[in-house]
């Protein structure tokens, strides 16, 4: 496959000025007093080299500040690298940040026109494709309203639909697939697959490791401005998570003097995190009391987390998941901001998650819970395989079900005459 994008020893250094925007007076003073040398630099990208083949979907992961956005901007041809170069083969388009790219006072239709013309199309060609974009974005009744009246979901839909329809060779999407409802996200993913099938290249970033793993052919892990790994999604993401653990440990050693760091002995499973915020206990409750015996199918389950903050945090992120013995994720709720979901987090709080009836097959499961800072850059407290529960069978005799979910099924067998059978089977 020919190459789509090639980054060759890419380095980007930003100048950090103390207060920006700098005024003319400051600039003149600096020149007169010869203080120009006193500037700070931040190395956003450090000698990054990689190449991407055409027809691939490549994910870029890295915690906040790892250089993802800088890299995407340079790949889009925005700004000049301090050293090194980017070569791309074909038209590049980018959905860089949500909220930029459209003019708020112009209507959706006018913004589509701007986007189309910037993608090198003639006026008439844009008019031709306009309806397809509006239909895909499902914005028929809003398209002649100013974009500033749109919700963020509508904005995203329009941006995505326009970017896809104007058909660049290389599309770069920064962290946008995570917005919008699930149905539309599914529609986008399908569209992305056809995009790839036509030999186009897609570069995405996301905090959602699951999405990256299922979508991408290749994943690039950035850490402190360097590419740590470029490889298949599974091993790259493992590496990414290892890095997260390493960062957690590093931070834990820094904060241990302030925070309580009880190296808890666990009956089973493992626990990691800086313990600045802890999940002091996890109780699994069913029918009003903590479970001791296996649950039977259809029984309710409440997961209760006692959260304790040792340092005051304005906000936290939290995950609550149920995993099978073989580590299959059956269910995971990701709360990326507890403050917006539940209100400000107190020093001691109880978080309850009630499941009316567990739609799971018999077996042993683990409740894995975690607390994280909102940028997901490390772990406060994560309980892995520490809280098991068992579900026992109550299935139809003589039948074994396998898989993840337990569906409510009804079976029936009746006999029919032979001629009716033939017509029924030919249908």
């Amino acid at each position, binding site marked *: 496959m020919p190459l789509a994008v090639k980054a060759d020893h890419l380095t980007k250094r930003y100048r950090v000025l103390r207060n920006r925007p700098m005024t003319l007076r400051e600039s003149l003073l600096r020149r007169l007093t010869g203080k120009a040398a006193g500037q700070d630099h931040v190395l956003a990208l450090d000698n990054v080299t990689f190449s991407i083949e055409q027809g691939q979907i490549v994910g870029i992961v890295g915690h906040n500040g790892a250089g993802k956005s800088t890299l995407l901007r340079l790949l889009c041809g925005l*700004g000049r690298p301090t050293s090194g170069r980017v070569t791309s083969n074909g038209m590049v388009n980018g959905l860089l940040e949500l909220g930029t790219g459209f003019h708020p006072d112009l209507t959706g239709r006018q913004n589509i026109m701007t986007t189309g013309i910037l993608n090198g199309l003639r006026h008439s060609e844009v008019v031709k494709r306009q309806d397809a974009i509006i239909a895909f974005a499902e914005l028929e009744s809003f398209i002649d309203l100013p974009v500033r009246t749109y919700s963020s979901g509508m904005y995203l839909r329009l941006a995505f639909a326009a970017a896809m329809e104007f058909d660049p060779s290389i599309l770069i999407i920064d962290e946008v697939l995570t917005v919008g409802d699930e149905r539309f996200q599914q529609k986008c993913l399908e569209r992305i697959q056809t995009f790839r099938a036509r030999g186009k290249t897609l570069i995405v970033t996301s905090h959602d490791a699951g999405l990256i793993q299922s979508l991408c052919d290749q994943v690039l892990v950035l850490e402190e401005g360097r590419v740590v790994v470029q490889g298949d999604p599974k091993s790259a993401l493992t590496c990414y998570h290892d890095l997260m653990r390493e960062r957690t440990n590093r931070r834990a050693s820094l904060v241990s003097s302030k925070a309580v760091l009880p190296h808890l002995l666990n009956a089973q499973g493992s626990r990691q995190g800086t313990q600045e915020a802890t999940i002091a206990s996890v109780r699994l409750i069913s029918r009003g009391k903590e479970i001791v015996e296996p649950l039977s199918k259809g029984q309710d389950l409440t997961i209760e987390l006692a959260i304790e903050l040792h340092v005051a945090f304005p906000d936290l992120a939290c995950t609550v998941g149920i995993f099978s013995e073989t580590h299959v994720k059956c269910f995971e709720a990701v709360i990326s901001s507890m403050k917006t979901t539940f209100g400000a987090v107190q020093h001691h709080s109880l978080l309850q998650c009630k499941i009316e009836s567990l739609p799971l097959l018999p077996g042993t499961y683990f409740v894995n819970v975690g607390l994280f800072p909102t940028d997901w850059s490390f772990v406060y407290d994560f309980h892995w395989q520490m809280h098991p529960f068992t579900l026992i069978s109550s299935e139809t005799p003589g039948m074994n079900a396998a898989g993840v979910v337990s569906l409510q099924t009804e079976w029936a067998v009746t006999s029919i005459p032979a001629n009716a059978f033939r017509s029924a089977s030919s249908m």
Partner: protein
Amino acid sequence: MIYSADLIWHLVQRDFQLSHIGSFLGVGWRILLPLAQLALLVLVFGSIVPLDIPDYPAFIYSALLPWLWFNSTLGSSGFLFLGNRDLLRRPNFSPIVLIVANMISTLITFLVSLPLLFFLLAWYERPVSGAVVLFPLILLVQGVLIFGLSLIIATYNVFYRDIAHFVSIILPMLFFITPVFYRPMAEVEYSSWFQLNPMTALVRAYRAVFFHGAMPEWSAVLIVAAISLALLWASYTAYRNRLPDIIDIL
């Protein structure tokens, strides 16, 4: 090239749409604003403090229109890059087209007022001569001047926001030292400091071809053309060097 032309034309339309959203008169304002300014000047310097210039409205209007092109283009240059972040953050976009689009948008204001100028000239029975065909040439020289100034203002205002404020102080001052609504005394007219203002030579050239039906002073126009080209080169070089930083800052 076709792509750039399409893009520029689209941006001009966009500018029109943006500046007339929600206004009743819409594009009509583009004709009304110069007229209002003309009315004010005629009132003040025709009746209140009379300057005794014959055919005064036509005298002013032949110089006011080019002045307003200069004034409104430079006045809006400061925020051309800052105010169009949405465009500057797209791949394949060259910010310089914003300068051109803005110039064309304001030039259209100039051109749609031309019929009114000809009407005034005819009304006062001014002599019309073949010199009028030189109008596009003077327009071109002024275009180069405006382009260079506009580019340098837009570029440096990204780094030093003082520039736009400075320009908004300078422009009204410049209006009074440019002979738009008066005829300077002869000894002032030919003094070098008065000629330093490049708009002086241009305004006099426009007035020569429209109002007097005569040839412009070639030497003055040529000097302005040379200065404008030098300025264009300097500002384009500055823009080229600063472009990556502009994108980083925005």
